[in-house]
């Protein structure tokens, strides 16, 4: 494999890893606050449809992004009401919302556009287009680093850079601010927060809302940057892969970046069977490559990455003890 091919692979890794990263960080907020969210997938799907539909109707990708965040937030609020206000089972609520999203997205898209549950193809300002970073052209000829900057780092949509910026921001928020301290505390021992006179419900709702926003960005990226429009089940299990990455990362932001990019790399490999064939030296069925990220997901979830201790109060609705 030559350097140019490697750069192409890494470029795809970043492109494909971004929605995973956004969803993974989304899940991190919710789960760190003690609310398990298996519904990342549904929120992304809802956001992707909202983004695709509004961008197609208005021609503005930014309105599409807002619509995506709104669509995802509606589901986040539903999950919050079910699992925080009414202390329901968080897994069941998440699964239900996933089913709902799977059906309702196609239904709405079909009702609006009558194109078999798809939104119309987006062009021009209806999409997030690649940005060439400063000096990318000029530095292109610097050996090794120049092409890395030009091919891999530069030339992505703004959402990719936003996702990367969310990693240090999340770290800072979690470990350096009052909000982060309380958020982590409420996921470990909500009674400690309650007895300190801080609202457990308020904190958990705030976390679930942030999850909604980030899932919204992830879904908008799917429909307006990675692809040009919404299609049925277009998230293809990325919400679940992001959950696996979250466990792999042991609920920590920098590790989440590494974990999601690893999954992104496997997805990028699946797109390049020729490269795999050249490296391995024999033909590998494409379907096997396609399955790789999911196989990795199963391995992670089965606990092959060592002991991952989730936030201690995760999954438990908070009830004051008598």
């Amino acid at each position, binding site marked *: 494999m030559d350097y140019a091919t490697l750069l192409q692979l890494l470029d795809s890794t970043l492109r494909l890893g971004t929605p995973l990263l956004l969803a993974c960080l989304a899940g991190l907020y919710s789960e760190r606050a003690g609310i398990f969210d298996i519904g990342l997938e549904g929120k992304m799907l809802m956001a992707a449809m909202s983004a695709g539909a509004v961008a197609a109707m208005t021609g503005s990708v930014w309105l599409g992004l807002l619509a995506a965040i709104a669509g995802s937030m509606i589901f986040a609020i539903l999950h919050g009401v079910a699992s925080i206000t009414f202390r329901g089972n968080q897994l069941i609520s998440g699964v239900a919302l996933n089913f709902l999203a799977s059906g309702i997205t196609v239904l709405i898209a079909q009702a609006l556009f009558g194109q078999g549950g798809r939104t119309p193809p987006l062009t021009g300002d209806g999409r997030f287009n690649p940005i060439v970073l400063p000096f990318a052209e000029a530095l292109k000829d610097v050996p090794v680093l120049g092409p890395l900057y030009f091919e891999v780092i530069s030339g992505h949509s703004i959402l990719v850079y936003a996702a990367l910026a969310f990693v240090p921001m999340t770290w800072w928020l979690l470990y350096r601010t009052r909000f982060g*301290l309380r958020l982590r505390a409420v996921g*470990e*021992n909500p009674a400690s927060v309650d007895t*300190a006179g801080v609202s457990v419900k308020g904190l958990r709702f705030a976390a679930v809302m942030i999850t909604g926003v980030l899932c919204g960005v992830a879904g908008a990226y799917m429909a307006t940057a990675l692809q040009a429009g919404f299609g049925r089940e277009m998230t293809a299990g990325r919400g679940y892969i992001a959950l696996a990455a979250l466990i792999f990362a042991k609920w920590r932001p920098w590790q989440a970046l590494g974990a999601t990019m690893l999954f992104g790399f496997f997805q990028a490999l699946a797109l390049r069977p020729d490269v795999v064939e050249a490296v391995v030296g024999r033909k590998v069925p494409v379907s096997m490559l396609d399955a790789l990220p999911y196989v990795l997901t199963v391995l992670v979830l089965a606990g092959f990455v060592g002991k991952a201790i989730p936030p201690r109060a995760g999954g438990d609705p908070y009830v*004051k003890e*008598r």
Partner: protein
Amino acid sequence: MGDAQYAIELKGISKAFGPVQANRDINIAVPKGTIHGIIGENGAGKSTLMSILYGFYKADAGQIFVDGKLTPIPDSQSAIRAGIGMVFQHFKLVQNFTVLENVILGAEDGPMLSTSLTRARKALADLAREYELDVDPDALIEDLSVGHQQRVEILKALYRQADILILDEPTGVLTPDEADHLFRILKGLKDQGKTVILITHKLREIMEATDNVSVMRRGTMVATVKTADSSPESLAELMVGRKVLLEVAKEPANPGAVVLSVKDLRIKDDHGVERLKGVSFDIRAGEILGIAGVAGNGQSELLAALGGMMKASGKITMQGVDLPLSGKGADGQSRRAAGIAHVPEDRHHHGLILDFSAWENVALGYHNDPAYQKNALFMDNDALIADTEKKMARFDVRPPIASLPAKSFSGGNQQKIVVAREMERNPTLLLIGQPTRGVDIGAIEFIHKQIVALRDAGTAVLLVSVELDEIMSLSDRIAVMFDGQIMGLRDPATTNERELGLLMAGMNGEAA
């Protein structure tokens, strides 16, 4: 602080949980700068009352005066603002946070952590000097002993400028030495003009530490007296509403042949940590061997291994026959067949099925008893119910209704059901763990009598309890466990609490 006479005054406080009236028209006045005890049986409403004072629950009726001023306390934030701090029985700490992080949680100076952390570090150093409250501010809570965790809770309250400190059953998890240290801290707080409210069910602590004491019974405040004018006996009578024997009346033991011999018993837990590190002892017929120790030092594992609930290595011999410690035959059923009855430490998880009725619970473990079978296929429920009713009558289970689910009985009556099931089999060996945990004084007296009666009938009894008073009053010999080992065997007639306390803390008095 103002110059009012009382730090806290509660007037007409009532609170109901569904049909249960937890507090009924409570009046209490706590003079400033005193240590005020609140005593009562489990379920008397002490913790509910204090949770209302801390804004954790809202009272249905009544008024709260802090420092002479009417102060509504709708939430914990208001309580903290009014200068009230609370140390709960179950600590409200975040295990994987540092001491500092726990102290500032909810009392941060601003949106950024760094300034709060710096200020808290300095404040903790000052408090440590002033009140013997030293804890490493950077230690993780999960690495601290229970005694130190409790200090963190006290520090949390003091950091929030609490003038009134409420402690709910603070000594349940402490060694006698740690408890003494706690009482020194409380005296120090009192000397600084702070007011302390101490909730406990231990009469000895009330007598030792408090200036005044209020007694609660079934949700009402029965009396408030000066501690110096009262006695343990009079307080116990107020708590229960009738005369109670605090001392267990028993004749000297008459030990027979060795019933169970334990040699070099070892247990590793799921993480590969050795929880029992070579325990050996003998128990004879007609004696009670008490195992003392702070919770978590291997007593639970010892009971589980002997009861066939946990794999172990080593050797146990029952009346000359070796019992298997792992594989086939190392289970509860085989142990029962060998004449071992087991009252487990945790009755809710191992002793009862709470949703099952009393008679179904009485059948648990003895469901193959021929007396309970109608024929090869069906159980004789009528016989079982009749048997249960007999047992309930003999053990004074209230209400004596065999069809009532176990969860509908009070803690004491639940325990009586378990004890009745196991004792009525006339076992050769009785394993009994925490026989009176969460059981009220009246029922404690009853269960203790039954244990002694069984011993007098020739049963060997292995008693595990974290209540040192219970161990000292019931046992014929006392073994103290620390860190998976037996630190020493003592005769209750010649030992004292101080010596046992040192052993419980891992210090062998003989070696020192």
